[in-house]
């Protein structure tokens, strides 16, 4: 394999991994607070159409990312209100949110399909990325560096900050956190809002970073893979990074197989397309063979909180 090809592959892997990583980091914080939001896919689609429409009308990519975050956050508030204020079933509400996001984005996006936009360009000036090796470090858009910075930020927040400690306490033992004076519902609202904003940005990655257009359901189940990755990473940000890049690699192999040539195309294209989903199942199986997968889960995950007094 030539150097050029290797570098092209690395850059594709990083691009494919970025939306999954951003969405999964958001969901990790949500789950650490004891809430299971299965609406990631729906919030991503709302973010994707918002990002697309903004960049299509204004041409401003950073405004598009910002508004996509806002749209994802607004969508997540439907979930937060139903599950946290009205203590509705989290699994059912999350599914409803995904159904809603799929329908809403398709409705808002009608008339926008097959209209091209421009991708978000590299963050650093091109002089820094002239040599192929430097391209691997400095050739990406701001979204990629944002995702990597967020891995550190989330890790620091959960492990080192006081607010992160409170958030974890709420996720591990809601009643104790409540009795020492923390507002469980308020903390969880904040976590869900963060998860929604991150899912919105992750969705915006699709039109801004990967394919410069809008297509219905363009996130293609990546939101669900992000949810699975949180389990795979046993709620640890750096393992999430490894997991997301592993999936990026699988998806990149699919692209190269479809482009034809080489040993990859000996496998039918449909099997390659099914690979990320099958890999998710296999990864979940492997992780639970190695140890009890649920052992590291936040103790209150998915349980509604009802103060007893």
């Amino acid at each position: 394999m030539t150097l050029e090809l290797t570098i092209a592959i690395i850059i594709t892997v990083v691009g494919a991994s970025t939306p999954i990583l951003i969405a999964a980091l958001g969901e990790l914080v949500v789950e650490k607070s004891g809430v299971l939001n299965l609406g990631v896919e729906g919030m991503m689609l709302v973010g994707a159409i918002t990002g697309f429409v903004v960049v299509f009308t204004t041409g401003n990519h950073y405004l598009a990312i910002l508004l996509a975050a806002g749209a994802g956050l607004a969508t997540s508030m439907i979930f937060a209100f139903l599950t946290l204020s009205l203590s509705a079933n989290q699994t059912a509400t999350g599914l409803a949110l995904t159904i809603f996001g799929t329908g809403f984005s398709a409705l808002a996006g009608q008339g926008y399909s097959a209209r091209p936009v421009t991708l978000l360009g590299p963050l650093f000036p091109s002089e820094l990325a002239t040599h192929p090796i430097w391209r691997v470090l400095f050739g990406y858009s701001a979204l990629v560096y944002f995702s990597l910075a967020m891995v550190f930020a989330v890790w620091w927040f959960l492990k080192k900050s006081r607010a992160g400690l409170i958030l974890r306490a709420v996720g591990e033992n809601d009643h104790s956190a409540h009795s020492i004076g923390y507002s469980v519902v308020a903390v969880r609202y904040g976590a869900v809002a963060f998860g929604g904003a991150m899912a919105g940005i992750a969705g915006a990655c699709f039109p801004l970073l990967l394919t410069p257009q809008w297509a219905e359901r363009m996130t293609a189940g990546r939101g669900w893979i992000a949810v699975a990755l949180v389990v795979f990473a046993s709620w640890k940000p750096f393992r999430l990074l490894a997991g997301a890049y592993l999936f990026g690699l699988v998806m990149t192999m699919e692209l190269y197989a479809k482009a034809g040539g080489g040993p990859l195309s000996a496998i039918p294209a449909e099997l390659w397309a099914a690979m990320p989903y099958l890999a998710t199942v296999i990864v979940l199986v492997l992780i639970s063979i190695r140890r009890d997968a649920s052992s590291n889960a936040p103790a209150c995950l998915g349980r509604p909180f009802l103060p007893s007094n």
Partner: protein
Amino acid sequence: MMQFRLEKRREPSRFMLYATPVAAVFLTMVIGAIIFSAIGFDGIGAVREIFLTPLTNSYKWQDLGVKAAPLIIIGVGLSIAYRANVWNIGAEGQYIMGGLAATWVALASHGSGGWWTLPAMMLAGMAGGAAYGAIPALLKTRLNVNEILTSLMLTYASVQLIYYLVRAPWKDPMGMGFPQTRRFASEALLPNIFPGTIVHAGVPIAVIVALIAWFIMSRSVFGYQMRVVGAAPHAARYGGFSENKTIWLALLVSGGLAGLAGMLEVAGPFQRMVPGFPTNYGFTAIIVAFLGRLNPLGVIFAGIVMAITFVGGEVAQTTIGLSNSATGVFQAMMLFFLLAGDILVRYRLKRVVPQTEARV
């Protein structure tokens, strides 16, 4: 100012349990019309075409039955699984595998079929769906892998399996290059129960399936087990009901019924396997199960309501040019209102008299 407070009911309100789904449908119509108008659509027209036209136009009734049948069959299965707290959300994949298994029987027996072809396809469909449901069951019971994720991931994989099969091994050689199988032989097609209509045998089968499921769930030990394990897992363990057995049963039954729906669709409306076979019935049936209050009889009504929105969505597309995806938004809204209303089943609104006034 008048203030309200939520007070926990001693027992869940049966009235609210059945009143909230009805209220959810009406709220969706009213608030849906307002929101759709506010964002620049013809809101009142959308609600009229989506919710009312399919009912007032008798020509659309057969369409309703045909669309409601798979929703009811899959919804009944899911309602049983959800009762047991088993979150099978991969019914779409089990529906696809049922359709593929039935297609295999139809193609293999092409030209040598007979009276037995349809029953064999039905068995194959149920077996295909149940087998696909068995994978999450095995992983959940053996390795404690979350069934939500596995059942959903398998759905995405099954869509690709259709694409592969109709593109290569099952492709109709006379199909002018279209990726689809040949049309099934007449003995592999569902008979119409009323000549001259599109109402096929799947429609009465759906009602029969719901009635049998209602009888089993409310009258048998199996039904009791599913309900107890879901509602009170500790008590169920104490009472000797195996949790693993319940998970297996829930996924086999819901997968098998989704597979049956897949067989009925491929042998009914589709008449052959095509890439467009996945029509989201498996996902919509999740809403049907909840709207029907996880009760097989309720699922019949919920299936009809959801079929109305499907047929109405097509009407609205042709009459007022509203995108088909508006249907999905209305369906999700219905589920949101239903979930929001759930709190009234367990709590009652109580007026709070301010303390200062009370002392006077």
